[in-house]
């Protein structure tokens, strides 16, 4: 008997800290990520954006505090997906990579190939389906990673600085796809160091400095009237020394 998968949303963090050895990476974060438009995490380097993304994905566990997905333990995780800054391509074709992701998500072998081609088409890689994935350009690999993520039919998609290594054209291609995914109802949670990208994509902003949550606000409000001096400094483009 198949249980209908529990929704992962909203994600509720209650006083969550992540400590590794002497270093406090995240410091008593309390935060809720709910349905809606893309939530973008911004902050200077070392602010813990990456770790917060990994926490939400379930790759990292809190050292203290609680995190729940849709009120539950989130162990199912079937409809969560993630794209990393540098995607790892399996040693097979582009279509093979997507088919692999479909298999991991539980699709029967017979349907995988057709569905893989369909997903590749959605990210504009249909013509490269039979190319060995490791021979794709950086931007193409990142789009392939997005296709792999979509293979999970996610309700929640995490992205950890997905365009940090890409040139502007590739960046635009990725952003267009992310926008389309968001429009189809998938909740996006994305970390970026690129303020312009945040402005282009965010519905709301989470601003972190040195592991502490400094501000959380709708995008418009954050960019026009930041509440904290650090946010103001950051938006000006100055270095935030905490």
């Amino acid at each position: 008997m198949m249980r209908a998968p529990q929704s992962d949303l909203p994600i509720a963090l209650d006083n969550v800290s992540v400590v590794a050895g002497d270093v406090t990476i995240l410091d008593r974060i309390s935060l809720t990520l709910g349905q809606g438009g893309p939530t973008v995490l911004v902050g200077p380097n070392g602010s813990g954006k990456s770790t917060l993304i990994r926490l939400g994905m379930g790759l990292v566990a809190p050292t203290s505090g609680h995190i729940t997905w849709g009120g539950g333990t989130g162990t199912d995780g079937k409809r969560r997906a993630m794209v990393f800054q540098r995607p790892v391509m399996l040693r097979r074709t582009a279509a093979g990579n997507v088919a692999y992701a479909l298999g991991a998500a539980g699709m029967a072998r017979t349907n995988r190939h057709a569905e893989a081609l369909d997903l590749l088409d959605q990210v504009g890689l249909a013509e490269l389906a039979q190319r060995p994935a490791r021979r794709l350009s950086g931007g193409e690999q990142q789009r392939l990673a997005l296709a792999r993520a979509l293979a999970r039919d996610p309700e929640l998609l995490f992205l950890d600085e997905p365009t940090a290594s890409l040139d502007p054209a590739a960046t635009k291609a990725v952003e267009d796809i992310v926008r389309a995914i968001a429009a189809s109802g998938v909740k996006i949670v994305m970390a970026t160091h690129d303020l312009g990208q945040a402005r282009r994509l965010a519905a709301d902003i989470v601003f972190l400095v040195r592991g502490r949550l400094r501000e959380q606000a709708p995008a418009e409000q954050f960019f026009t009237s930041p509440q904290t001096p650090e946010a103001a400094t950051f938006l000006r483009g100055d270095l935030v020394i905490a």
Partner: protein
Amino acid sequence: MPDGTSALSLVLGGDPTLFAIVRLSLIVSLSATLLAALVGLPLGAALALTRFPGRTFLVVVVNAFMGLPPVVVGLAVYLLLSRSGPLGFLGILFTPKAMIIAQALLVLPIIAALARQTIEDLWLEYRDELTAMRVPPAGRVATLLWDARFSLVTTLLAGFGRAAAEVGTVMIVGGNIDGFTRVMTTAIALETSKGDLPLAMGLGLVLIVVIIAINAAAWGVRRVGEARAGT
């Protein structure tokens, strides 16, 4: 082997005894390597990916057994397969089957240890993605083994090299029976003990050439495969 002939004339003249011996050497050592790979590759990958009490000890033991003395393995298998031993009813002592099994045991630690190292290194690279895709443990083993396939070719060659070069194991469990269990290494040992050193050395060179040919073929397969996979 006919007396007083050189290894070169045996090769050029297509001496059937020599060819039969080379053929048996290849069958035994290739089969042994394949058998060891069937067990050793998943074992090495499992060791790389799992954590359990005693794992460190097991890793150390597997590494150490890469240096198992062939004559000891031969003796142990002999005692097992002897009619007076626990597996005597199989009746396979002094046959190529016993030689394959014994060499497979000799080669197994090499393949497992090297596979473990290769997969451990690859896991560092693949860990995030495979965890994010929620691939179960068995799936991880299969995926990593497949993606590491080119590096693992080198592992298999190391195992084959060990098997093809050893004499202690196959001598004891095979008995160096003329026309039945005589392989290159035992033939070389025999000609040496008969004092025909030039022939023995010549056979040794034939063996080395055969091993180089196998390695070259494996290299070719690897290059073609890598080109197609775009690595």
